[in-house]
């Protein structure tokens, strides 16, 4: 994928900044105004629309991505802040088109309905499981309390994350 060709405005103005970063393991270059939010940059410049914007004021967690491995709300960062960073988005979770264990457990446990909050939920859960491979139920609830969901009532999400931890603990991929 050539990020250069994905920018819809190749005629750069002075205000545009060139940003080089790694997204889901792939180096990309694109341009953005300094005021452009990271969420908008990922969605509309890189065309990775799996990262959703649910509030744009840092309250709902739908736009959560990993920046150098840590969860971050991409609506509270500017694109220029990720110069040289490693970004992971929901599009990077599946491997060769196959759902990751976390994604599979979300499906198995009916942990999504409308699916709008799901990408942020998955990224927060992924960060949690990377830090804490065997979290208690309360640790899961605490770690994901910043991700709002209006459809599921949450309990199936907790079960899905728990089941993923259990599966990983047993080495089942």
């Amino acid at each position: 994928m050539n990020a250069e060709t994905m920018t819809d405005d190749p005629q750069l103005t002075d205000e545009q900044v060139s940003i080089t970063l790694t997204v889901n393991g792939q180096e990309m270059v694109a341009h953005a105004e300094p005021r452009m939010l990271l969420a908008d940059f990922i969605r509309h410049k890189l065309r990775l629309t799996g990262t959703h914007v649910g509030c744009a004021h840092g309250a709902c967690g739908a736009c959560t991505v990993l920046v150098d491995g840590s969860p971050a709300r991409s609506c509270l960062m500017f694109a220029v802040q990720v110069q040289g960073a490693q970004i992971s988005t929901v599009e990077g979770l599946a491997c060769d088109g196959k759902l990751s264990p976390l994604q599979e457990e979300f499906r198995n446990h009916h942990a999504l309905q409308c699916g709008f909050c799901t990408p942020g939920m998955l990224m927060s859960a992924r960060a949690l499981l990377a830090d804490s491979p065997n979290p208690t139920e309360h640790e899961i609830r605490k770690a994901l309390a910043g991700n709002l969901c209006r459809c599921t009532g949450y309990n199936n999400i907790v079960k899905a994350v728990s089941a993923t931890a259990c599966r990983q603990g047993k080495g089942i991929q």
Partner: protein
Amino acid sequence: MNAESTMQDSANGYVGKPVPRREDERLLKGLGQYIDDIPEPSGLLYVGFLRSSHAHAVIRSIQTDAARQVKGVHAIFTGADIAAWTTPMETPVPGGKQLLRYNMAVDRVRYVGEPVAAVLADSPYEVEDALELIEVDYDSLPTVVSMEEAMQSEAPLLYDHIEGNIAFEARFAVPGTDEAFAGAAHVFADTFSSTRLSGVAMEMPGFIASFDKGHQTLSLWSTSHLPHKERWEIALALGLPERSVRIMSPDVGGSFGLKTVTRPEVVVGAALAMQLGRPIKWQQDRQEDLVLMHARDFQFRIELAVDDQGVIVAVRNTPLVNIGAYALWVTTAGLDAAGAGHHMMGPYKVPYYAYHARAILTNTAPTASYRGVAAPICTFGMESLLERAAAKLGLDEVEIRRRNLIRKEDLPYTNAVDVTHDTASHLECLERVLSRSSYFDFRKSKSGKPGADGKFRGIGLACMADHTGQGTSIARKRGQASRWPGYDGALIKIEPDGKASVHISLASQGQGHATVFAQVAADRLGLRFEDVTVHASDTASVPFGTGAGASRGAVAGGGAVIKASTRIAEKMKRIAGHILEADAKDIILKEGRAFVNGVPDLAVTIEKIAETAYMIGMGTLPEGETIGLDAMEFYDPPSSTYAMAAHIAEVSVDPGTGLVTVERYYVAHDCGRVLNPQIVDGQIVGAIVQGIGAVLMEAARYSEDGQPVATTLLDYTIPTMLDVPEIVLDHIETPSTITLGGMKGAGESGAVGVVPAIILAVKDALSAFGPSITTMPLTPSNVMRLLGVHDDAVNGGT
């Protein structure tokens, strides 16, 4: 579960099984197509709206010169421009009059947030730049924010021609109701209210409108899930024929009722696309979402008359609904008010009943019907008054419910508003939830007593019926029959390769339509689940219908799919019989094959049947049989069908902070035939948690001069993962006797029972203080007031 044993023609048996959702893989990979994910057509312009900062004012002037100079800005339009290109929305109001809603304010604004000017620019950032530079000169007018203010005799009027600010009024009484009250042994009455809510679907509304000047057709990608209603309203507003307007709903990220509304912004965007010949996009932001449309702003005066045994003699409901500054529906301003009239009796036998429902105009954001409509507050009132009656009569609070619930031997029970209960498992639901929760032990050992942690514990019970699957006849009875019908349609095609596509008139907002309707069709057609796809979002390809809402998808959509697939199955059996030289009535369709009953080897594949039906030069279609394998059918449910449930909540209340925690929750539920238990459970649990928000935390408040004060998700808080208890769910499955397939609706009932269950649990926990709880949310500061702690410094409560 008895789904398989009674589901006729369900040879494959997908119905009733927790078939994994086929929507999920795409959504989990981040490949959903929500409105803001759709690739933008070239030449697209973003639109954004300058909004009124006044609750009620006359617009003197609008200065846009500076804003027009901003880089990237193409044009700015005001209400006068839009009024020339669109027809205002007209809703009937009392006195044979009409309430007009201009799509953008022309000379007067009536709530904070009303659109005043539209900016078109290359990017949403440039739209925001320009909006900051528009100057509007207003002359303030007196405001009315609450219904009390609006109904005073000298209150300012929102519309000079609408007396008393009353936009809808309906009365109904069973003859003899007044006499029944007069002669009753006991009457209990109170006013039960909600606090105004926001819907907070995680995806916010938006659209892309594109107009083809050559064909004179409008294509509109929209977050509406009632696509045919939106098509009609847009066509009406723009003066286009319905055939020239195409509505496409992509993935819709939740609605809970608020996306049923055709927003003025959509009409403006469509008009601008027509005028400019360029695609126009709008994506609402969360601050707009929290102030532009609300829900459930109710005050219901409810009276209950019982005899000396606690048996209900009569009920009267006087509901008031604050609908804000405008009606949101072309057909009526009284969806919630009339709903309050209809939903009041719930699961109980009520011989005499009357209501007087009104919808009141105020200088606040318009309110839409929200999950549960009026039923949560009706049920809150009924359950609370029954418990008061029990206390007065020295009866057990469970026993008074048992004495009044509709029983199987009462069936068919037609209630006072002429809706018939076709099944009644209320007592089974009640007994199941009582035993699951060890209710009586809890009452004896824990209720109202401080625990080791100093917190008071309480338990609350609610019985409820939910009005679901409403067909056209009910709208007709309520005087609300309109072009928004009561039926839904399914067009099913088996393509020449033997794979089926199901086109239905209901667009999903997350309920899993692509899965459940494929289950229903695959069973009837004898196809494998993976060979059936569901399309539900494009008015150019789906039949006309009502759309998803009001707990009607499984009933109306399921019925339409059953009818259409049954017709195709009959034709396939005739063709198979012809090929196999057997009688069509001996043919069984299963797993992609047609075979003769008892002779499984005498078979033909559905691929072969499809080939025969389409490639008529190659095969042998029976004499007189028509070409192809498709059918379009509509299903109009004959009435409404009540789903039912009993809910129990266990709570703790911290007397030091007033914090209420829901610790455990139990529900026993009967929504008739269950199509997919996993999806039904998800609907019920999700609705209960939404209700926890309504009861404990959510409030879309206004200042006295009509300024909304909860404008971010930090001010308007909804439940998080930490607010949710274990929810224990039991199903009782009693198929409806009146709906095709036996289904009842499941989407809303969780949001109904949760309100009285939690509130009565808090009342139980605080029984030592004898609180009377008639409103919500039970925020810590409001609970401290119930405990007798009055702190004038606390401004957060109502």
